[in-house]
């Protein structure tokens, strides 16, 4: 049949329905009259003619229905009828409808929430041009594969661009903005001139770097991030072209980048390099391009189209080998490529899939509950359905009706679930701002909407089909005879209900055990000894860059003054200065030469390096194990000294006294440093990592521009801060405190992701337990209600209340026991996948399994108790009489 007339007819059928009905009616009436007349002309009496005509017509309504059925778009009309009918039916049973919708909302909503996160973190590509070509280069040194690069390496890698279209470098840096507005400290970077070209994102205003900006004599320019443009300049269009004073240098603003452009959300500002290669420090006077020992550059690359990661890696390895031959002291430096998206995702991927697994289980439990509810309801409607079948409704039609009802419920549940997930997720992410790297991008979008829709429809079909199928079975006479009061629906349906409950209990146990293991891991993790006393420590950063601190003497003098003044503050007990904070990661690594051991560069030990003040360990509360700590005499005119941690001492000198041994960082022309003390291990890089070797040098001998300050005091951070700020201002009004925080807050940041995962998992476990319990209660209560008659007979035959109670309870708990058994096996299988997330707890931890199985059994007992108790209140006379 041709398409256009069909569509036109469809249109007409849908819109002109009443007129068509009327016309059809008239047409049939006309037909009847003509036929009657025809028969009269053939010789019949008027009455007989009319009757004969009616007979021949065969029933006006039937004919009309047959015409309607052939009409295009008929199924659409009937579907709409089904929907309206379904709404009416559901409204008549608000209890069922409400519970079903809420249950489904929990199941679908949790899935939507997790999928939103998966979508933003795993599925959405980064918002750079062709992000799949972008790679990150980790520097590899002996024993450490996440190092930075030196300028020599950068230039070497950049010069042989077989696999890369671009290779860019940057140096993250802290900038002090002074001048027109309030002095402000921002995080930013000095990036090579091709940085923006590599990322391929056009600027929002003005321009970004061009190759001219990378020439040796190029003037210093800056590109603002969107947020900084808004916060400091109010989004002023004329900001481009203005001059900013950054670290005491006058810098021209040339452009603004779009919102949410950044590898790292804290980067607010980009400066061009002065010599083509990003500066180590802004006021560094030497030739940066010859620096070999300073590994401070981060490298980014864009692969040529068609080049794979492996090919590029091979090329880099060859390059690195060549470099090593040219500069024998390159000590086995190389590069390791990872795709940029991998870097962002990190180990979130596994966490997310785990969470996804949990919510799928929750959804299955929810489906189980609603299926049971639907089964019960379908049983109650058997009479209605059978009568409809008896007057001619096809099975398809009945099934469709029931499916429409379940789909309506599922879509309503999906809608409520969607709302819940949006609010819930927003709230949750606000509680844990540092937990997920791409958190600002987690917004509902089309994909999430489609996902929710698909889940809702799938769920609706799932829990609607089976009960619908069972309810529309053509068992007319049997069903019509059976009294709905004590129709349990036959053995098949009872078994289905019971299997569903067993499955739900099992699934709930799986989620509970997983959550339990994670909780215990977290508890173990936070119980790890960090190696210092984290309480009562107020911390902040200072960056001593800028012209004023250009010389080492100025740097040292400032810190001396600062230390004296801060120590004089009331409430301050001790001060620790360093170049990084514990737990948050080690800023600098280097490989050492050890006196008396001639090791090839590739075999040398790579250790963490820290610059500290003399009172550091005392202030941090770390034990001194051997030898002495630094003091004021260890300055530039004294012989160089170092301290090592226990791990390093054990590694290098397992059976000897480490004191007096000498080691050397840097080039062979550097002097040897003597080990004067050994301290207990500090967890520099994270609570969950094993102890690694670390080495400490006195600040007086190795001044450093980026200083971390930790004040041990009896006062809270908030109380202390004002006085501290004032002290620093007195010394240098332009020097702001960066990131003032209690040490505990810093540690919390490193745990943020874990804590968020844990919270989510526990939430899902509670929901799973709740749903399974409600389901169990529902099934037990229903079963008792249906068996009123049977129970009445039992009592009449002599069963005591106790017997009845025990009977019901035993039947219920048998199901629970079965569920727990299956659950334990399944949980053990699942916990194998969890192993990477666990800390200090084995996947088969018996305590966790036993405790949670017991909890589940207890809660289930309560759920069975009430219906069992209700069963004992059955009055046998009433039970026997009711029919």
């Amino acid at each position, binding site marked *: 049949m041709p398409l256009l007339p069909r569509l036109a*007819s469809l249109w007409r059928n849908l819109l002109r329905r009443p007129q068509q009905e009327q016309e059809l009616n*008239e047409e049939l009436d*006309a037909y009847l009259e*003509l036929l009657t007349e*025809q028969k009269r002309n053939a010789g019949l009496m008027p009455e007989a003619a009319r009757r004969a005509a009616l007979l*021949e017509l065969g029933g006006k309504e039937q*004919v009309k229905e*047959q*015409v309607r059925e052939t*009409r295009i778009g008929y199924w659409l009309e009937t579907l709409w009828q089904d929907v309206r009918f379904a709404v009416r039916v559901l409204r008549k049973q608000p209890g069922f409808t409400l519970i079903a919708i809420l249950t489904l909302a929990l199941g679908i909503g949790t899935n939507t929430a997790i999928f939103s996160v998966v979508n933003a973190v795993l599925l959405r590509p980064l918002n750079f041009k062709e992000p799949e070509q972008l790679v990150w280069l980790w520097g590899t040194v002996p024993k450490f594969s996440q190092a930075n690069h030196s300028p020599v390496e950068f230039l070497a890698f950049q010069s042989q661009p077989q696999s890369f279209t671009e290779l860019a470098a940057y140096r993250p840096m802290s900038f002090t903005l002074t001048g027109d507005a309030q002095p402000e400290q921002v995080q930013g970077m000095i990036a090579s001139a091709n940085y923006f070209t590599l990322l391929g994102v056009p600027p929002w205003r003005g321009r970004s770097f061009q190759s001219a900006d990378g020439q040796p004599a190029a003037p210093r320019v800056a590109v603002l991030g969107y947020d900084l443009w808004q916060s400091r300049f109010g989004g002023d269009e004329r900001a481009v072209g203005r001059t900013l004073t950054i670290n005491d240098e006058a810098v021209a603003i040339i452009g603004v980048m779009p919102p949410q452009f950044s590898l790292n959300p804290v980067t607010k500002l980009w400066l061009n390099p002065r010599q083509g290669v990003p500066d180590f420090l802004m006021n560094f006077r030497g030739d940066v391009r010859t620096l070999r020992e300073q590994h401070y550059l981060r490298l980014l690359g864009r692969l040529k189209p068609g080049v794979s990661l492996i090919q590029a890696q091979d090329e880099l390895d060859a390059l690195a080998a060549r470099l090593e031959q040219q500069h024998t002291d390159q000590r086995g430096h190389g590069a390791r490529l990872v795709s940029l998206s991998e870097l962002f995702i990190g180990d979130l991927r596994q966490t997310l899939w785990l969470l996804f697994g949990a919510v799928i289980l929750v959804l299955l439990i929810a489906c189980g509950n609603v299926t049971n509810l639907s089964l019960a309801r379908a049983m109650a409607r058997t009479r209605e359905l059978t009568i409809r079948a008896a007057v001619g409704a096809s099975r398809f039609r009945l099934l469709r009706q029931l499916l429409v009802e379940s789909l309506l419920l599922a879509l309503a549940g999906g809608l409520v679930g969607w709302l819940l997930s949006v609010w819930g997720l927003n709230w949750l992410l606000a509680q844990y701002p540092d937990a997920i790297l791409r958190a600002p991008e987690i917004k509902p979008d089309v994909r999430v909407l489609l996902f929710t829709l698909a889940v809702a429809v799938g769920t609706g079909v799932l829990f609607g089909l089976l009960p619908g199928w069972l309810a529309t079975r053509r068992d007319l006479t049997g069903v019509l005879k059976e009294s709905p009061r004590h129709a349990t629906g036959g053995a098949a349906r009872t078994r289905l209900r019971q299997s569903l409950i067993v499955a739900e209990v099992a699934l709930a146990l799986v989620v509970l055990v997983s959550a339990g293991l994670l909780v215990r891991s977290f508890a173990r993790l936070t119980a790890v000894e960090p190696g210092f006393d984290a309480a009562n420590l107020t911390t902040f950063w200072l960056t001593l860059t800028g012209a004023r601190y250009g010389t080492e003497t100025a740097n040292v003098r400032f810190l001396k003054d600062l230390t004296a003044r801060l120590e004089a503050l009331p409430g301050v007990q001790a001060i620790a200065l360093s170049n990084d904070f514990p737990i948050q990661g080690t800023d600098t690594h280097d490989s050492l030469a050890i006196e008396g051991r001639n090791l090839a560069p590739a075999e040398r030990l790579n250790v963490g390096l820290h610059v500290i003040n003399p009172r550091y360990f005392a202030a941090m509360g770390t034990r001194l194990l051997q030898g002495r700590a630094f003091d004021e005499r260890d300055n530039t005119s004294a012989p160089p000294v170092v301290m090592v941690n226990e791990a390093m001492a054990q590694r290098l000198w397992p059976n000897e006294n480490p004191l007096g041994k000498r080691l050397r960082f840097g080039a062979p022309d550097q002097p040897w440093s003597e080990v004067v003390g050994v301290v207990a291990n500090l967890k520099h890089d994270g609570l969950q990592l094993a102890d690694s070797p670390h080495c400490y040098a006195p600040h007086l001998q190795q001044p450093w521009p980026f200083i971390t300050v930790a004040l041990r005091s009896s006062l809270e951070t908030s109380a202390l801060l004002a006085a501290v700020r004032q002290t620093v201002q007195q010394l240098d009004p332009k020097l702001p405190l960066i990131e003032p925080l209690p040490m505990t807050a810093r540690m919390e940041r490193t745990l943020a992701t874990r804590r968020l995962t844990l919270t989510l998992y526990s939430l899902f476990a509670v929901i799973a337990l709740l749903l399974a319990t409600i389901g169990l209660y529902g099934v037990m209560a229903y079963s008792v209600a249906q068996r009123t008659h049977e129970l009445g007979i039992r009592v009449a035959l002599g069963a005591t209340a106790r017997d009845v109670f025990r009977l019901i309870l035993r039947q219920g708990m048998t199901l629970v026991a079965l569920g727990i058994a299956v659950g334990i096996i399944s949980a053990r299988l699942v916990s194998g996948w969890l192993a990477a997330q666990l800390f200090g707890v084995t996947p088969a931890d018996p305590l966790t399994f036993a405790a949670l199985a017991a909890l589940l059994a207890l809660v289930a007992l309560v759920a069975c108790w009430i219906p069992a108790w209700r069963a004992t209140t059955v009055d046998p006379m009433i039970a026997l009489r009711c029919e």
Partner: protein
Amino acid sequence: MKSTHPQPKQTDLLQGTLHLLILKTLSTGELHGLGVSNRIAQITQGVFQVKPGSLFPALHRMEEAGWLTSEWGASENNRRAKYYKLTKAGQRQFKTETEDWQRIALAITGALQAT
């Protein structure tokens, strides 16, 4: 008084052949519903007696397909009736279906005669 016409056997009528017959009856002019079924009975020598339950759905179907149009008019004895008429598309359809039918009929007849 019963009708004196002998009642021929009701043969099953495929929907396709019903369409063909309706197209045929309307190819010579417009008719109302009863007229169509009368004419079909006439031209098939009484073999096909089309009941309203089959006729009207077919007529409406064909109208939806654009092969027929309808309008209300006065019948022979001045009663109101809905008259159906072939459209151009309907005429084309009639030609096509006739050719198809003849081809099928020829093939089946030949098949039945084969040894």
